[in-house]
């Protein structure tokens, strides 16, 4: 609204044709409100130990003033120096982390070692607003060199974590006490996702190629994969316990290989089955979507079936197919979290442990990295898709 009405007030000349995508102003206003509210709400929750109820602590007046200023900063910058909006939003993100650090440190100072200072509603709201602001800044500076400023918060936030400034934050205290085990669970999570995806690709890719040429087979294969997908992940895990433990009992050799009703074997089976549908569906659709005229011309020019596949069908199908692989990967990060319930390990372990003992910090220790993992995988594979799409002349 206000921003889009007054594009680039301060930077006429070089930026005269500055175009503000419609709605960016609204995004930035939407970013301001949670930041304002967050500044005024409790910032830290101090509890004598990790399970006891505690007291809400607010920001000191000086920081409230600074917070209010920071809340308005992205919107103001967008009006005056639109190029620097990303910097203002990043500043707000970093300030949120910094203030959390100082406030938690101040809160636990002089308390017993079991005391926990966790982030209260104010911090979360402030981060939400700052996050929206970086998103808005990204929109505003899209396709300009300054768009990287919307990510400028990364290094300082990493520095805050590494320097120990946030060490008094309850989540990190839990993390420290978990330490190597947490790294292990993260590794286990990645391994579950990687192996599930790998197996699904191993089965799904040839199956999709085979089924894409056969009407009936394609229908059957897709139907089966679809049926699996409609089962809730918990139900699927439960259903796999009985047959797998029966198998393990019947063939002790299998048990020696680590196959049993609970643990990694059923989890991996379930993950593979889940990943299969997007890989199969997109594969079949993409391979069948190759124009028949193109195939006809290729065959008519004397390509062998292998050449036809590698030179024409695969390159043309790849962008759509890869987006199926991406969906599968993101899906698996979530399903792998549930697999902790049957003893497969992974970040889900913390989520369920935290839920059982009502320890929010433990939940966060599992949930936040899992969410970041999903987002990171999504972004990385999207990038790959775009790259391939451009290479094969289908992309933007």
């Amino acid at each position: 609204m206000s921003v889009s009405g007054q594009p680039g007030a301060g930077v006429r000349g070089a930026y005269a044709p500055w175009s503000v995508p419609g709605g960016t102003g609204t995004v930035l206003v939407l970013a301001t409100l949670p930041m304002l509210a967050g500044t005024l709400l409790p910032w830290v929750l101090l509890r004598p130990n990790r399970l006891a109820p505690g007291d809400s602590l607010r920001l000191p007046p000086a920081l409230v003033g600074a917070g209010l200023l920071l809340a308005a900063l992205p919107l103001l910058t967008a009006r005056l120096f639109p190029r620097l909006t990303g910097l203002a939003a990043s500043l707000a993100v970093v300030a949120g982390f910094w203030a959390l650090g100082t406030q938690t440190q101040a809160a636990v100072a002089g308390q017993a070692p079991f005391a926990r200072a966790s982030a209260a509603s104010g911090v979360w709201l402030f981060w939400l607003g700052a996050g929206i602001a970086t998103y808005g800044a990204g929109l505003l500076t899209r396709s300009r060199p300054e768009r990287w400023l919307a990510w400028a918060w990364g290094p300082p936030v990493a520095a805050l974590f590494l320097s120990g400034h946030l060490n008094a934050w309850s989540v990190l205290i839990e993390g420290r006490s978990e330490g190597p085990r947490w790294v292990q669970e993260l590794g286990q999570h990645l391994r579950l996702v990687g192996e599930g995806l790998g197996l699904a690709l191993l089965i799904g890719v040839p199956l999709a190629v085979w089924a894409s040429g056969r009407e009936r087979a394609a229908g059957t294969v897709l139907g089966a994969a679809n049926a699996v997908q409609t089962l809730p992940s918990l139900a699927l895990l439960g259903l796999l316990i009985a047959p797998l433990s029966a198998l393990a009992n019947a063939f002790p050799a299998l048990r020696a290989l680590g196959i049993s009703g609970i643990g990694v074997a059923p989890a991996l089976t379930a993950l593979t089955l889940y990943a299969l549908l997007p890989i199969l569906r997109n594969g079949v659709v993409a391979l069948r979507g190759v124009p028949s005229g193109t195939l006809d011309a290729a065959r008519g020019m004397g390509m062998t079936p292998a050449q036809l596949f590698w030179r024409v069908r695969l390159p043309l199908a790849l962008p759509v197919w890869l987006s199926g692989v991406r969906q599968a990967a993101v899906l698996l990060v979530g399903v792998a979290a549930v697999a902790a319930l049957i003893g497969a390990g992974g970040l889900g372990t913390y989520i369920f442990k935290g839920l059982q003992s009502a320890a929010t910090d433990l939940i966060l220790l599992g949930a936040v990295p899992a969410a970041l993992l999903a987002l990171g995988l999504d972004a990385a594979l999207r990038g790959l898709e775009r790259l391939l799409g451009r290479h094969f002349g289908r992309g933007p």
Partner: protein
Amino acid sequence: MIELQHLERRYGDAYAVRDLNLKFPEGELTALLGPSGCGKTTTLRMINRLTEPSAGRVLLGGRDTRDLRPEELRRGLGYVIQQIGLFPHLTVAQNVATVPELLGWDRRRTARRVDDLLELVGLDPAVYRAKKPGELSGGQAQRVGVARALAADPPVLLMDEPFGALDPLARDRLQDAFKDIQQRLRKTVVLVTHDIDEALRLGDRIALMHAGTLAQFGTPDDLIHRPASPFVRHFLGEDAVLRQLAGRAAAEFVRPGDPAGLPRIADTLDARSALGVMLREGSDALAVLREGVPLGVLRWDDLRVREAQARKAQA
């Protein structure tokens, strides 16, 4: 060059092509003409074995095509289809280079060949080489399709309604361009079409098909003046002569004479339009000018095809 012997293709109990015997003369363009569904595409695809015959055989230079590997056979037969079928993920140059690449030509030779061919079909290589098919108009894409089919210099060109997807103007232009190319290259061309005008205009010979069988094979004049059956006469229509005239320039019929006082036309006008001018002006002779300079006289008698044929026979 290409000979079809008792060629047959059944789908279930139905014949798409039935006992077809035909010789496509070397270096000539034969139009495979006929109504929709009469088996033209099936016939064409049996030549490069995209469709396998149910019975009969195809001889290529005296050799049964079944003795060759299908891929090998196809690399020696240029193939252009109606949907053009360019590879959307490859550039124009890469599209044209497909068969040379399959044949293992070296890079330099392929690149030179690609440029030559783009020029041949009237596309500036510097402009079009790096474009993707999605950036081309229908006419440009079809030119690339023709260039691609010619890439490895195959002696035979199979074309399935290559100009069918174009608007009339682009089609005319591309037909002219192709006629030019063919006059230079003298390939053995089999051109499938259901467009009578196209067949009369481009075909040295016409093979007219009807329900999977051959109705008549001959020159355009043969079909027009000596139709083998009522079907042939009916299919070509009573105005076939006019259609044929439409495909020829008025200049072809010019003879020396005194142009004084006659209505004037340009030599680029087609013969049917010249006839129209005669009817409109009530004159049985026209002065034909080339860039304003009198070239000679076009007479009503000369347009009467029997005369034209007689002259052709003398020449």
